[in-house]
């Protein structure tokens, strides 16, 4: 065995820092490090410590650098932090920068196959023989490179006090109980743990201890959560085209729907999933399925949303229910395809041509992704219009500690759809686009309805109340006005915002989606610094009355979001021009999840202006 390199840190010998730091592992994409990283994350979670894990990966299958950051937080903060106290370097290409990135007093670990000069004496530095440990664990030669990353799991387990039983539990979950891969990986971890025990001396203060702060939580990514939600929402048709970071949404439906929906003795499937040739076809298919009375969904990201524009306009105007998940990434075009963003708000809200107002639902947690998975169908069918669920890469693809999924608290709402018996019971003849109830929402029928006069002709051309072709000016205007009434009605059905208040707060913060954890954390810091803020988390467009009341009730409201142009801020200005002076925009658009530090400092800077 090689002799370990131990460099004693000069500055960090002090009190232990327990359950409150971030660690980052730098590896090469495609090197199998994902298993190691989620194993660490899950083991910590099972120890009862609040954790969040974020994968910062390149747009590449193999070879480019990738970083995985785990934050452990006794206080339950889940946002990304900007400092890394513990860093593991496994990638020669980024070694120098990784070494420089360790916070003073922190710990740096690296595989001893990396030969670089260590130019810091304010941190603890340890190397470990990753490749040798993989070999000595007995792993077959062809798998050694792949499992070598498990060595840092064992070393960290020893150096940070991570419970080895929990690591085993995490591996059992990851490999679905299959003993062979579990034993293979555990072998390397055990070997590394033993090696570390014999050779490394702890000189930094960072470690973990079991707590009881994760019971009643699960770990889930937003895409899987949304997919399961869609399954519980009775999804019947899915068409999709692969794109990061949305693919795993449709894939999770494919992989899981049978387990939930196929029942013994059933004479056939209750759903169909088609991988389309592009996003135009994906939305076309879902629009066709929505027209024919199915709960239908497609998932995509910004580039796909652009391609769906014409269909989105048609579905809005022909009044066809369809759900679109937009898992946002940094655009335009390829942009930064593996980085997170909230950049599709404006384009999606107005997606179409002519006058269009699309309904957006914005989940802020994995649990909410599940809820919006089913609720989006109810709203879309109730309103007979597209509903866009605006998730993002961070929420969709990373593992989140979240409250368990809850069974839908309402029966399925199929909206105003008429079948043969319903038509028979009508006193007046049915007309496809007549506003019978005064809420702007007409009644519809679906193909397969055998009642004479049930059929209608869906079209993008001007039409009268009975869906007949019409170019009459008054018909056009009446129809467009009804669509406005319908949009107003939608505000009674979309999820209301979530409010967090503090006594005496005069400053408001509005944010949405995956910005949530950073805003919550920043609110605590600001309060500690003497600035009380209230926080409204938007969950939908159209805005509900709570939003107006919130802005009106505060001297100033900051709209914090992850795009350059302050897109939600602009929508709020359009909606509430009379309160424009009270609204301020705070934006961050570097592709990274928001940090509380940035929110706090930029808000304070604005306040001092």
């Amino acid at each position: 065995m090689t002799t370990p390199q131990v460099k004693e840190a000069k500055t960090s010998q002090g009190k232990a820092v327990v359950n409150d730091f971030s660690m980052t592992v730098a590896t090469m994409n495609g090197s199998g490090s994902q298993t190691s990283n989620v194993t660490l994350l899950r083991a910590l979670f099972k120890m009862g410590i609040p954790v969040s894990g974020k994968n910062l990966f390149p747009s590449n299958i193999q070879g480019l650098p990738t970083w995985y950051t785990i934050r452990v937080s006794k206080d339950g903060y889940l946002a990304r932090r900007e400092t890394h106290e513990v860093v593991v370097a496994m990638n020669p290409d980024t070694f120098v920068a990784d070494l420089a990135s360790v916070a003073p007093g922190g710990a740096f670990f690296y595989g001893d196959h990396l030969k670089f000069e260590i130019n810091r004496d304010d941190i603890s530095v340890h190397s470990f023989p990753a490749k040798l440990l993989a070999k000595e664990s007995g792993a077959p030669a062809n798998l050694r490179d792949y499992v070598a990353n498990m060595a840092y799991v064992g070393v960290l387990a020893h150096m940070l006090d991570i419970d080895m039983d929990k690591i085993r539990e995490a591996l059992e979950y990851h490999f679905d109980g299959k003993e062979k891969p579990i034993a293979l990986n555990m072998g390397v971890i055990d070997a590394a743990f033993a090696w570390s025990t014999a050779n490394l001396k702890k000189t930094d203060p960072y470690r973990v201890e079991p707590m009881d702060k994760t019971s009643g939580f699960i770990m889930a990514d937003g895409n899987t959560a949304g997919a399961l939600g869609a399954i519980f929402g009775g999804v019947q048709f899915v068409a999709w085209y692969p794109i990061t970071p949305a693919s795993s949404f449709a894939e999770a439906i494919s992989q899981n729907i049978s387990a939930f929906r196929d029942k013994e003795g059933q004479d056939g499937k209750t759903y169909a999933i088609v991988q389309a040739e592009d996003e135009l076809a994906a939305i076309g298919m879902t629009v066709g399925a929505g027209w024919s009375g199915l709960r239908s969904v497609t998932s995509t990201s910004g580039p796909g949303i652009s391609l769906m524009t014409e269909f989105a306009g048609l579905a809005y105007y022909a009044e066809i229910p369809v759900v679109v998940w937009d898992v946002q990434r940094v655009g335009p075009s390829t942009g930064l395809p593996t980085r997170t963003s909230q950049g599709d708000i404006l384009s999606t809200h107005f997606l179409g041509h002519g006058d269009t107002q699309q309904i957006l639902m914005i989940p802020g947690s994995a649990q909410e992704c599940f809820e919006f998975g089913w609720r989006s169908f109810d709203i879309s069918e109730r309103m007979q219009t597209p509903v866009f669920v605006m998730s993002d890469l961070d929420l969709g693809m990373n593992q989140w500690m979240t409250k368990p999924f809850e069974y839908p608290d309402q029966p399925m709402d199929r909206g105003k759809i008429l079948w043969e018996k319903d038509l028979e019971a009508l006193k007046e003849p049915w007309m496809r686009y007549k506003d019978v109830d005064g809420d702007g929402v007409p009644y519809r029928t679906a193909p397969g309805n055998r009642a004479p006069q049930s059929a209608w002709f869906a079209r993008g051309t001007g039409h009268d109340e009975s869906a007949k072709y019409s170019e009459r000016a008054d018909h056009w205007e009446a129809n467009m006005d009804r669509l406005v009434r319908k949009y107003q009605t939608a505000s009674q059905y979309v999820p209301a915002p979530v409010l967090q208040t503090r006594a005496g707060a005069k400053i408001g913060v509005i944010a949405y989606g995956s910005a949530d954890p950073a805003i919550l954390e920043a609110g605590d810091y600001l309060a500690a610094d003497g600035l009380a803020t209230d926080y409204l988390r938007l969950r939908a467009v159209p805005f509900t009355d709570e939003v107006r009341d919130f802005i009106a009730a505060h001297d100033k409201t900051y709209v914090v979001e992850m795009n350059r142009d302050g897109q939600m801020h602009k929508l709020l200005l359009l909606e509430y021009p009379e309160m424009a002076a009270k609204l301020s925009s705070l934006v961050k658009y570097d592709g990274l999840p928001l940090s509380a530090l940035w929110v706090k400092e930029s808000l304070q800077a604005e306040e001092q202006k």
Partner: protein
Amino acid sequence: MSDTTETAMPNIQLNLVGLSKNDYRGAQTTLCAGCGHNSISNQIIAAAYELNIVPEDVIKLSGIGCSSKSPAYFLNRSFGFNSLHGRMPSVATGAMFGDHTLKALAVSGDGDTTNIGMGQFKHIMRRNAPMVYIVENNGVYGLTKGQFSATAEMGLRLKYQGINHYFPVDVVQEAMASGATFVARSFAGDANQVKALIKAGLSHNGLAIIDIISPCVTFNNNDDSRHSYGWGREHQEPLHDFTYVPREQEIQLGEFPEGTTRQVEMHDGSTIVLKKLDRDYDPTSRAAAMRVIEESQDEEVLLTGLIYVDTERPSLTDIYELPQGRALNRMTDTELRPGKDMIEKANAMMF
């Protein structure tokens, strides 16, 4: 309303499902008088009436163009979707899953199909969606006033467009290349053949492409144009004499000498009887199909008839194991939403 049968005029012919031809019509056409698309609409009406199809059992779909307007002019009692330019195939694909017991009939134009819609056209054939897909092919964009489409022949000269310099797309050749399971060509001037092919297409369990040369009398009907009435009449060369025999009807071959006919048994029990003309043609051979298409291009003839048929390949909706005879859009909430106990399973799947 319901007592009309008693007072029905004796001279109104009712079919086996008790409907008159009027029940199959649509709104008054707004296309130009003499437009080939109108005669195709008439044959769709006649075919559905004669096949005793209940109009509510059909969905009709189209893209955008003069041709794509025509679904408004037939089968008023059928659900219809006049969708987007070039995107009808995707809408049809999704729509088919709502109630897979319905028949789908789609109308498109040459521009709609081979220009803007080439991608979706190809992919719906790969998927073998059970649908009749009629391409009303006039070599031009009628609705936008006469620009060249991708099927216009090289050298075609049009008054306001000049000369077409590009190589034309051949709809049936593209269909063969993409694995369509029913490929036919016809000519709007040959009403009987059009009707028989539509009937056969409606009996096919898979994608039936029917490329119908359908002259645009306003923009592309000079006698030397490949999409004109004049050229079609002069150059039409049927592959065979084509007869559609519905399931209920007995096949009478008495009049044909032995060895001069072929029969193709269709999915719904009907039969296509092909009577040999100049050559003995086997429409189940891909190689033969490709060859006659090539030859017809070289010889500059309008080859019509059933060029290829494969009755074996499962259709799109077969592949998806949908319930027998029961529509997805009739599923109850209990069938669609997993039970309360299943939420435990969902949470247990997570870590």
